[in-house]
């Protein structure tokens, strides 16, 4: 085995750690955040919501089962970099198409291995998220720290335009469902994960994906039955255009659903506040209490901003709450047919406990009051390709 290149990770507060290069050689920068999922690294690396962030995986062995197309949430990795404790150079799984190292190299993704990740997690937990640089080229501590300091803060940063689609496209064409023409879902793409699109398609919806800046009239010209505001990276407060679009959608009375960033955009449109969290939620084990049913969903989460708990009188009801820190996880809007969640019902990676939300949106488009099941069945993922995946 060739000896891997040395690499360094520098934080804006002056912390520098040494390790070995994984994936592509080079230099990268972004906000250092951590994810506690123990599997699903490739889904995380390709999630467009992580654009601009350097991902530290808390589980020490990463790369164990290699990389494969079906585990991708976009056509390329979106994280800015990867930080791991122990990188698996000899993966094993029948689903594997290439090693994770090869995948990273192919896409120019820079990473560092051999790092005491737990120490960094505790550091961030204490001090809050901060920016960082990973490099295999510049190993000078002072220079790296200076570079980390120069990285713009995520707060106030609009990033969705970097990851949205350039042109509208049909993910799933119109067709029939139970003899009826299928429901048409217009997806506003701020960095949408593939499995959200698959989830709508799986329920027989026609799905058209629109670029982030699409004017309201252009969206409505497709005559959608429902509008979906997607997940995505960055600070929603820096997206006045998107918020304005949400206001127009709301005013139109079209059934609307939002996930993560989309949830925050809908909240902003209804006059609620959004704030940047100290550490954020990133993992696949967060308990969310459904206040309507009293049932708990174990959820995948990935957000650094959240909706501020405030006087929601007449505007919305909090219908999902995080059991760990009581933060707002879901809103049921009162002035228009719509709801939104902060967490990720599409999973990938993570548990399938909340897939009912997609059914609920179809029901809403069908003109029914959305009623969550008393006990949601964790239904299989719409990927449903070979069991290999």
């Amino acid at each position, binding site marked *: 085995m060739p000896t891997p290149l040395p690499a360094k990770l520098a934080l804006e507060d002056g912390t520098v750690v040494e390790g070995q290069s994984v994936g592509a050689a080079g230099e990268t920068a972004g906000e250092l955040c*951590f994810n*506690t999922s*123990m*599997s*699903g690294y490739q*889904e995380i690396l390709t999630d467009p919501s992580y654009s601009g962030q350097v991902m530290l995986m*808390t*589980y*020490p*062995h990463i790369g*164990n*089962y290699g990389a*494969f197309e*079906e*585990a991708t949430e976009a056509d390329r990795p979106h994280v800015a970099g990867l930080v791991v*404790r*122990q990188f*698996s150079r*000899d*993966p*094993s*799984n*029948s*689903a594997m198409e290439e090693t994770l190292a090869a995948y990273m190299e192919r896409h120019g993704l820079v990473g560092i291995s051999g790092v*005491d*990740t*737990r*120490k960094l*997690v*505790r550091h961030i*937990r204490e001090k809050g998220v901060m920016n960082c640089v990973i490099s295999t080229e510049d190993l000078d501590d002072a220079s790296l720290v200076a570079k980390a300091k120069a990285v713009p803060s995520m707060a106030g940063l609009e990033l969705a335009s970097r990851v949205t689609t350039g042109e509208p496209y049909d993910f799933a064409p119109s067709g029939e469902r139970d003899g009826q023409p299928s429901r048409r879902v217009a997806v506003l793409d701020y960095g949408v994960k593939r499995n959200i699109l698959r989830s709508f398609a799986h329920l027989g919806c026609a799905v058209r994906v629109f670029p982030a800046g699409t004017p309201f009239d252009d969206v409505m010209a497709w005559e959608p039955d429902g509008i979906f505001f997607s997940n995505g990276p960055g600070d929603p407060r820096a997206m006045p255009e998107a918020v304005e679009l949400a206001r127009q959608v709301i005013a139109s009375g079209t059934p609307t659903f939002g996930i993560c960033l989309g949830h925050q955009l809908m909240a902003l449109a209804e006059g609620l506040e959004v704030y940047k969290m100290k*550490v954020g939620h990133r*993992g*696949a*084990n967060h*308990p969310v*209490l459904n206040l309507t049913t*009293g*049932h*708990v969903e*174990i959820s995948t989460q990935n957000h650094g901003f959240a909706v501020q708990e405030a006087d929601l009188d007449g505007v919305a009801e909090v219908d999902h709450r995080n*059991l*760990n820190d009581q933060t707002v996880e879901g809103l049921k809007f009162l002035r228009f047919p719509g709801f939104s969640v902060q967490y990720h019902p599409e*999973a*990938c*990676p*993570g*548990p*399938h406990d909340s897939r009912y939300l997609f059914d609920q949106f179809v029901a809403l488009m069908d003109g029914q009051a959305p009623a969550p099941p008393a*006990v949601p*069945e*964790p*239904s*299989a*993922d719409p*990927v449903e390709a*070979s*069991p*290999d*995946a």
Partner: protein
Amino acid sequence: MPKRTDIESILLIGSGPIVIGQACEFDYSGTQAARALRDEGYRVILVNSNPATIMTDPMTADAVYLQELTPKSIKQIVETERPDAVLPTMGGQTALNLADQLQQEGYWEKEGIQIIGVDIDAVHTTEDRQAFRDLMESVGIDQARSRVAKSLLEAKEITQELAGGADGIRGFKPIVIRPSFTLGGAGGGIVWTEDEFDRKVTRGLELSPVHEVLIEECLFGWKEYELELLRDAKDNVVIICSIENLDPMGVHTGDSVTVAPQQTLTDPQYQRMRDAAIRAMRSIGTFAGGCNIQFAVNPADGRMIVIEINPRVSRSSALASKATGYPIAKVASRLAVGYTLDELPNEVTGTTSACFEPALDYVVTKIPRWNFDKFEGVDEELTTQMKAVGEVMAIGRTFTESIQKAFQSLEQGHAGLDGELPDRQVVRERLARPYWDRLLQIRHAFRLGASVAEVHDVTKIDPWFLHQVRDLVDLEAETRGQRLEDLGRDALLGLKQHGFSDVQIAELVESTEAEVRAHRLGLGLRPTYRVVDTCAGEFEAQTPYFYSTYDQGESESERSGAKKALILGSGPNRIGQGIEFDYSCVHGVLAAREMGYEAIMVNCNPETVSTDFDIADKLYFEPVFWERVADIIDLEDPDGIILQLGGQTALKLARDIVDHGLPIFGTPFENMDLAEDRGKFSEILKELEIPFPPYGIAHSVEEAVAVAEDIGYPILIRPSYVLGGQGMRIAINKDEVAEYVANILKLFPDNEILLDLFLENAVEIDCDCLSDGDEVWIAGVMQHIEPAGVHSGDSTAVLPPFSISDEADATIRRYVAALAQRLGVVGMMNCQLAVQTREGKETVYVIEANPRASRTVPFVAKATGVPVARIGTMLMLGGKLQSFREAGELESSLEGFAVKEPVFSWDKFPEVTKELGPEMKSTGEAIAFVDDITDEHISKPYEMRNLYLKR
């Protein structure tokens, strides 16, 4: 829903004596359950016949019944206590079966007692093969494919079909055949090759009275997984832990090396398993509690099938609790009384919810501990029938770090994944089938140049694990032959991060452990300690539960300013050293805390109460292995170390501890060692005018024969420093002496051989005492029913003695007290004696003395009601017997006799002859209280006594 107020008292059923497959993990779960339910204000009534448990201590429950686990005894207890509910899921299959038996009688309903924690009727579904198939099918969960064949031709068709149809066949795939209605599954098994197909199927058809054979897909080589789940009354389900068996299907999970969390599944594969597990758990009736589900995954295509469900707390849930920090039994008990998961806090963080799925940022490895050496002629191959008697668990930041620590924990002479390279042929043969030493052989195979693919072909172990082992072999190869002083910081750190012990490194660079340690400390390389926090560092943890790693970042364990007592645990359970020692350790910890010490526990046995993070002030889940213990001592700088409680495990480290000038609480080491040194010990006996059987010491076969000829026959032969009579034999002539000694020297090279004249027709006596250095108090004198020659651990012991004279009893007490005084015992001592009657005259002999907690301590404590281990520890820490006497704590509550009955696990080794001798073979014990010696608990073994002895 908050807790139920319609019930006030709960009957908790234990699991009875320790047997293979059902061990002290149920003391852990039962103790947790009892404590949790009492915290909630319920009256807990506990029944268990196993005296060596913490759960049966008066402090654990409101009412404790040390009674046998039978419908009759349960009914008696119910008569007296009138419980409102019964919780049968904490006592293994024993408790569940017992509750079920009474359910079938309609007993619980008749008495108005509710069963909580399980849907007892639904349990049948999990145990009935066909019902389980049907149920799983109804919730859409795949299972092994099978169909019944009534002819050879049909069998061929089915086999082809299972292989994927005629087109899909690429050579013959093994299948399993199960002839219908044959006794004990006769004629069943795996058909490996096409050649044997016709013969085996035809025979199966012939053997089956209805001429039917079930042809089933063979899961040999499939990957095996377990999930540990919790479910509440609102049907919330969470997965607490995933466990991957390193050994593929075919080896019982209790005999498998297992790793948590799972390592080799993709997220879609894992989520599919999670979905299936949740559906499966919800399908087995309505209940709130814990559950374990096993799955198999075909490595070729990822297809997943369910194997079995255990709707109760299990061995794996104890492991999962220790692996994640999530107290499964405790939470399961709260769920059983009505709480829902969202109402309970995660006690580890104190701030977050219990309704979540722990995230690990480390790797946990469990390795079983077998005791094949105890059973002559035993089949050592690992099968679907569990054979291990105990297990160790180790935590490391990486798999390699954890697996090496696990080997260091085993106490089988390994300092990691090590050992001398055997002959290539031996490796080939050992690898062909799953034996206990498989990982060691895999290392050998790599050293001999085998490839990962080759080893995978033979063992079917996932290549990911094999690559990890090969990485270790590569590192060894890089290091071997270097000079210690040339090993720089980076190289040494690399080795340490892969779990290599100083001993292993010393071997590679031809140095000594002490030199490697000195070199390492010189380079500033020490382990750091991390918290097992359930959340991968996301939230701050409140629990003092640590493991060591060589990640150098920071240590999360800080030395406090309090005075400290370090308690060394007893390591993995094995025959001769089991739960009894953990019992003493737990009491030691509690007593030290009561005396104002910060109690620090070091142990590596996941089944125990001592490794519950709630027990000690600080828990280090670490190998009880010198290097690891020394590092902890360096960090904590304890005021003293308690060695008397952890059996031979702790004692073995005494020499190192003393050599390093570290303080010991209680009896000075020199005196503890005195009892092990036969020569010095005899001198003391002589000086005290205490008779002892003639003895001799030998270091070779020739020497042993000479000694034996001198002393006479029959003669007892055993290695020194070994517990449980391992290798002990009785010889009647010099040929036997030669044979036995040669065998012992093979097993324990360099060990001393002790030879004692065997006292014929003698009664054996066990005596436990406490001493504060000034005075000695006899805690209990026990008479063995079986004649001398049967190991004391295998004997039925009766307290007090029933057939020796009062004079002999007084002599025993006098001798023991004198010995304890002379040995300067501070704390506990156990003494073995014999009373021989010749021509109407009784002579009392002292056979051996062990100045430490013994196997019988919990029995004596339970029989008399005196907390012997607690008081013993307090004496070590400076307490005086006088104060306990004044407080009335030394008064026995025993009326009549207490009987300790050995329990064996013979059914696990059908090929082994069931005979008793000087080598201990029992795995557990039960206690019975009887009024007089005519009771069958005494009379029956008494009748048997002569049968036991071969000669």
